[in-house]
């Protein structure tokens, strides 16, 4: 019962990892990070249900709060960057590149 949720969560997390690594659009990379956060949330809730302890679900609540804050600041950064450079391709973000 528990294992299938954990395997599904691992699959979703690795798909998210792959997306972060192969895509170039910053917004798509952001969405892949959200996918990874959600995979972890599924693990939290499955284990919380398995162990009969509600603490994991409180953690999911905090993860969602952090994701919302991340969305607000991250998207504001992308809009600010797009105003300067007319692009949000991560290959173009190289001002601080060594």
């Amino acid at each position, binding site marked *: 019962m*528990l294992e299938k949720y954990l395997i599904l969560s691992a699959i979703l997390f*690795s798909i998210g990892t*792959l997306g972060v690594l*192969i895509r170039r659009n910053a917004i798509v990379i952001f969405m892949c990070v959200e996918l990874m956060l959600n995979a972890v949330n599924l693990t939290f*809730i499955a284990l*919380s249900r398995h162990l009969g302890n509600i603490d994991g*679900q*409180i953690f999911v609540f905090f993860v969602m709060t952090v994701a919302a804050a991340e969305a607000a600041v991250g*998207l504001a950064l992308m*809009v600010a960057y797009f105003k300067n450079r007319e692009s949000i391709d991560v290959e173009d973000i190289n001002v601080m590149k060594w």
Partner: protein
Amino acid sequence: METLFFTIVAAVAVLSSILVITCKNPINSALSLVMTFFCLATFYVMLDAQFMAAIQVIVYAGAIMVLVVFVIMLLNIRSETGKRSNHAVAVSSILAFLVLFEACYFLFRSTPAKEGMGPLTSSVIEQVGHTELIGKAMYSEFLLPFEITSLLLLVAIIGAVVLSKKKI
């Protein structure tokens, strides 16, 4: 019956998450991600976490994804033209596969903890209600982290306002 339902919803979740990373157009990716979030909300209901399913749909599929779609349409982003080189894709695939392998390896290597040791059981959730259980835990045991969360949101608001000023 439950296993069959789980398999169908899991297949939809995996397929739509693959669509997130393969679609050329960011809007299609965003809509596929909403589909994945709905599948995850279904799993939360199957795991007796109804309140979490509700805020998954309201906060994630609602608020956050609307913000993302809004920004995509605001910036008028063209579909990606140039792809990454084949080497980059191959190395990334190997890395992602390693993550999956590692997770599955540790999963099958370990023995699972005993089920249902804690106080949270189906009958308790049915009698008390999931929202009330969450509320009791959050406003007693987790009061300090909950208050610190408000600080995080304040910082996020200030950050978003500062970043969207005309001249930065």
